[in-house]
């Protein structure tokens, strides 16, 4: 039991060890390869890194609870783009023209509502039809992307509102708005998973769905809530991101689901459900962004970044597997 305990903690803290290794590697390698004089572990650099990991990170937090719940959501990229379009487009809707900059509040709320609705629709379909979440969201990944295109054809939706940009660029205590939002998201969703009945039931459902059903836990509504939550977070991520950029391309957010899932899996969440933590995901998100920034810092090109990220994902999976096999006693099936 003791060694079990050690293994379990080792696999959850592995991602932080990995982050430390990355920091050391890029700091040292940066001395020889980097073209800038700013140290890698410079405070500003690290703050920037957190800001940059926010868009993927906020969605990854939602993906964690969905995956703990035993589901997966491949449509987050499309929801991200759709919420972005609603945010920017509604800023200039004539019905809001009388309220000045308050339109920002309204637009943000509209964007978040869009995310919740699209997420909830996924959840409702999973709940009511019983079709596997992978298939449902593979479908809606296409379907929602279609909706994004229907909104404005293949043209981008743009609306540069400087008040909004200033809000996005603001810093409170030296920390960017995006980082605050990311941090609060991590904290709140962590509290939900640790301390609320809904959060604990989400784990129970992912762990042993039959047990949960037999115990009278209403599996469907919990899944609906989690899909609505990830929809909300995808929209929140869009708000954070597009507030600072002001233009949505209909292709935006494609492949986000893959990066998000990569971060969540690196953070130790099991695909089968029932196990995983928000803090682990935070580690996964930071590890990926470190790798990206770090490889850029030492001058590696896109192809290296792709290669390294892909291989690391497989290596992590391999190590995790080695930690979990029961050695020679395992059945060879």
């Amino acid at each position, binding site marked *: 039991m003791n060694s079990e305990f050690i293994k379990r903690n080792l696999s959850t803290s592995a991602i932080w060890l990995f982050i430390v290794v990355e920091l050391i590697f890029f700091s040292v390698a940066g001395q020889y390869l980097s073209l800038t004089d700013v140290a890698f572990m410079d405070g500003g650099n690290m703050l920037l890194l957190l800001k940059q990991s926010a868009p993927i990170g906020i969605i990854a937090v939602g993906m964690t609870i969905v995956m703990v719940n035993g589901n997966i959501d491949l449509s987050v990229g499309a929801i991200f783009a759709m919420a972005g379009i609603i945010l920017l487009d509604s800023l200039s809707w004539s019905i809001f023209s009388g309220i000045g900059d308050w339109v920002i509040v309204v637009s943000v709320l509209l964007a978040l509502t869009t995310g919740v609705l699209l997420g909830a629709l996924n959840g409702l379909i999973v709940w009511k039809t019983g079709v596997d979440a992978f298939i449902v969201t*593979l479908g809606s990944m296409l379907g929602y992307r279609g909706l994004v295109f229907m909104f404005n054809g293949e043209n981008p939706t743009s609306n540069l509102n400087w008040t909004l940009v200033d809000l996005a660029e603001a810093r409170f205590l030296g920390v960017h708005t995006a980082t605050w939002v990311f941090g609060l998201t991590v904290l709140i969703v962590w509290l939900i998973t640790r301390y609320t009945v809904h959060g604990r039931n989400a784990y129970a459902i992912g762990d042993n769905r039959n047990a949960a059903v037999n115990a009278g836990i209403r599996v469907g509504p919990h899944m609906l809530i989690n899909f609505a939550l990830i929809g909300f977070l995808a929209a929140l991520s869009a708000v954070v991101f597009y507030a600072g950029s002001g233009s949505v391309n209909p292709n935006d957010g494609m492949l986000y689901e893959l990066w998000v899932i990569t971060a969540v899996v690196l953070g130790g969440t099991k695909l089968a459900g029932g196990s995983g933590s928000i803090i682990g995901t935070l580690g996964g998100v930071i590890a990926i962004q470190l790798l990206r920034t770090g490889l850029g810092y030492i001058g590696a090109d896109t192809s290296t970044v792709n290669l390294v990220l892909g291989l690391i994902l497989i290596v992590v999976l391999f190590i995790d*597997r080695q930690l979990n096999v029961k050695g020679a006693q395992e059945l060879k099936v």
Partner: protein
Amino acid sequence: MANLARKRILTVMGNQGILIAFVVFMVIFALASPKFLSLDNLQSVVRSSAILGVMALGVTFVVISGNLDLSVGSMMSFSTIVVLDLHDKLGPSLAIPTMYLMTLGLGGTIGFLVGYLRLNSLIVTLGMLSAIHGLTLTYSGGKNMDIDDKAGTWFSFFGQGEILGLPVPIILFVALAAFLGVLLAKTPFGRKVYAVGGNSTAASFSGIPRARTVFTCYLISAFCVATAGLIQASRSMGSQNTVGQGLELEVLAAVILGGASLLGGSGTVLKTVIGVLILGFIQNGLLLIGWPFYIQYVITWIIIILAVWLDISVKRGKFWATI
């Protein structure tokens, strides 16, 4: 009584649902555009579906064996780039087998990781999607690959040639489908694929080599990807590094549409072919009636969910899930 009648309707729709959908779409498009049912158009649909279709054939094996392959898109870019590059360096007759070997090497790596090391296929192929893309970019240096002497090579045969008036991509697609269809349905190996996908533990307890079977499925998938890359390269005689990007999900959509369960153990080659053709005809039909391509996304979404929903409704005897 009403119960039984409903169940029968469900069963018929579940078993033939995908065919019914197919016919319905054909009728709608035929009414909307007179050109839709012309021989030329039908041929062009099949030809343009050939690349997706060939890849879907391989993924069908992987899915039936209970795994996923998300790396086929970037692997296809890899084969295309490699064969184009080697064409000018080694000549077509050496370039093609070399490309096949390299692609099979990638497929074998995935098969080893998923089959022998028992790593989760979703994550492995997700990682490989990214890694192979990086590999392709490193290989090509990010450059487009083009065959220098386009007129003086027989390489164009695979993508542009014709035999007895039939385009070669169609012939390759049909031949591969027939071969793999028979392999899956009629041979001991095919039976093993179903057994491993249906219940890998029970398969092992029956002496079926689970790892080797899964490994072979990934090799078949890689072979199909290499063939798709060959058609692609030969069709355009030049290519960008991102040519296969995003195809993995379209391929998976076609396979699911054809009725293969992601849990493994069910699906057939013929149904996958129908799934591929449905996607192809929707795409083509929408173009002909002048609707933008993205309407196709929405329609695909709806029919995928309806198709799978119908299928599981039949199995549980109820439309709505009770969870």
